[in-house]
């Protein structure tokens, strides 16, 4: 499915700059020197987005899949909601001090799947009640992506409802062409402004870059090991609530929260109070539907006490419920959950397994 906005994008005259790897490094350095910058930094053998002050600290071209997404920069693992102090005169509730993530910033080395995840999250954060913190962080952030040049083992973004090639989720896209040149393309107004501020090379006037960019995509688009027929699968997932496949497919899940915490689109949270004497802070922290206590009610009733029910919620929320509600798929196909899973459960495998059982069910009916 091509998103309608992409068509507009194609019509728009995208400004593309052509440069070489050295020029790209210079561009990065220029951005870091003028903007508050976040980039993938290696910590404990994995890449995580951290604030950087020089290019040597980070690696914007870090390999896929990053084991972490940039979700924490928009939805931190634990954010303070408010503070309160109780005195003899009464209680005073106050907003927390300034949000460290609200300032203007640039994120380098963004993967297209992570950027798409933000587009997906926009729907839930901006429906009905607007999450102002999220919106502020989103508005003040400029995403500079590096397009992948290979498909990692668990990637399946090309199978889903968005377009990796033309995505408008990023502001500036960096594409390392096969001809050794680097193409830097502005994909939004914000991005255009950044490129005008730091022109990374010559402006492409001949239009030859479009061909090279297509070629680069074609060079790895076929290398995806995992692919599925998204339309059929998502149509089948709709009717899969009673599928027995969930029970079998989730039998070796250990009910930790890893998949949800590393997932760039999972957005469930819990609210907890930490109070010492008369002062307290209320936090909003990650939570996950794989957690047994997630839906435990005060009376002791728990609709998702059994593991397969929790997995069903997760899989169906990703591939059916969210789409029904907001029109987009909650999974972006980045494969982070599979990479991080302690027992290597793959959501791709799970969804396909479940969808398969639906085929047999409907066929037998016929």
């Amino acid at each position: 499915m091509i998103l309608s906005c992409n068509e507009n994008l194609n019509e728009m005259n995208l400004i593309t700059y052509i440069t070489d790897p050295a020029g790209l490094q210079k561009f990065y350095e220029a951005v870091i020197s003028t903007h508050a910058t976040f980039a993938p930094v290696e910590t404990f053998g994995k890449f995580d987005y951290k604030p950087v002050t020089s290019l040597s600290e980070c690696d914007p071209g870090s390999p896929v899949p990053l084991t972490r997404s940039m979700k924490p920069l928009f939805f931190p693992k634990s954010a303070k909601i408010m503070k309160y102090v109780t005195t003899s005169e009464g209680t005073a509730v106050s907003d927390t001090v300034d949000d460290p993530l609200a300032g203007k910033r640039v994120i380098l080395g963004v993967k297209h799947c992570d950027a798409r995840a933000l587009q997906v999250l926009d729907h839930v954060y901006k429906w009905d009640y607007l999450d102002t913190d999220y919106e502020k962080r989103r508005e003040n952030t400029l995403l500079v992506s590096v397009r992948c040049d290979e498909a990692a083992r668990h990637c399946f973004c090309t199978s889903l409802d968005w377009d990796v090639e033309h995505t408008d989720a990023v502001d500036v896209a960096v594409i390392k062409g096969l001809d050794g040149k680097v193409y830097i393309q502005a994909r939004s107004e914000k991005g255009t402004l950044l490129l005008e501020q730091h022109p990374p090379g010559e402006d492409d006037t001949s239009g030859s870059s479009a061909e090279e960019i297509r070629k680069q995509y074609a060079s790895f688009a076929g290398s995806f090991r995992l692919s599925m027929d998204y339309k059929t699968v998502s149509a089948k997932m709709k009717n899969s609530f009673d599928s027995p496949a969930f029970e079998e497919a989730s039998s070796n899940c250990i009910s930790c929260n890893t998949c949800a915490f590393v997932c760039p689109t999972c957005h469930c949270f819990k609210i907890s109070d930490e109070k010492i004497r008369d002062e307290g802070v209320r936090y909003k922290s990650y939570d996950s539907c794989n957690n047994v206590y997630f839906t435990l009610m005060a009376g002791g009733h728990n609709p998702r006490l059994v593991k397969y029910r929790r997995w069903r919620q997760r899989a169906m929320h990703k591939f059916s419920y969210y789409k029904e509600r907001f029109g987009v798929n909650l999974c972006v196909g980045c494969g982070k959950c599979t990479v991080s899973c302690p027992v290597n459960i793959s959501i791709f495998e799970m969804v396909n397994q479940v969808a398969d059982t639906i085929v047999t069910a409907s066929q037998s009916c016929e």
Partner: protein
Amino acid sequence: MMDYTNQIQDIAGKLFSEGKIDVFIGYRNTGFDTNQVPALITHYKDVDQLVFNEKSDFNLTNYLKYEHTRNKRIGLVVKGCDSRALNLMLTENQINRDRLYIVGIACEGVVNELGGKAQNCLECIMPDAVVFDELLGNPTGKREYKINTDVSELTGKSLIERGILFEEVFENCIRCNACRHSCPLCYCAKCCIDQETSTLYHGANTTSGAFHALMTWSLHLAGRCVDCRNCEKACPSHLPLHLLHKQNEQVIYENFQQHLAGMIRDDRGAFYKYSLSDPDDFIM
């Protein structure tokens, strides 16, 4: 390189056909990469999915604590370290020995992500299963205790350096609790850290929360940890959790009559016994 795939398939098949077990816990290939996933096989027909080789690193005794093995007769594959965990679970009355058919492995060590031998296997004290109904491979016996090089290297550093390292560790923890869920010895129905009624509860995923959770967790496992490294392999942040456990293990080994967890049946954790000659000089 060890490979007991055929033997295990035969054993599991025999157990199913004789009706001795309801579920067999082993490993199978993911089907899409070289990794393996734990497989809970319930039918004779699925037995040919089972594999066992040097990639079979997950400690399967972990599954004995989950609901779908409850009250079932279980066949189980255990390596040396796994069997020590199983021994402790048996000792702590977590599972009935009569329900288990244990296939022990005389392990030659599993490989890590890079293809080399895993660190815990290099330092392994007991590669052979210590509790089993059937043993595969050639037992090589108990080895000498080796001090973990990472721990000794860190102990040599200054307090500040260690503090900085662990600050980084706690900061990077996302408190997904994968470490706890993948640990066979963390079988509590509800972890004390999750007890919302407790005044000691800290629910937020802050750095301080991670310190609180990880330190408490490692101290509750001190004297019981069998160094299977399930926690470390499970950690999505790749935190060096073994440092905490190995430090505890070393202190316990050196001070408490060379105690090692789970080596003998009915030998409980180091904190469940005492000796009159335990060190006392640090107490005023």
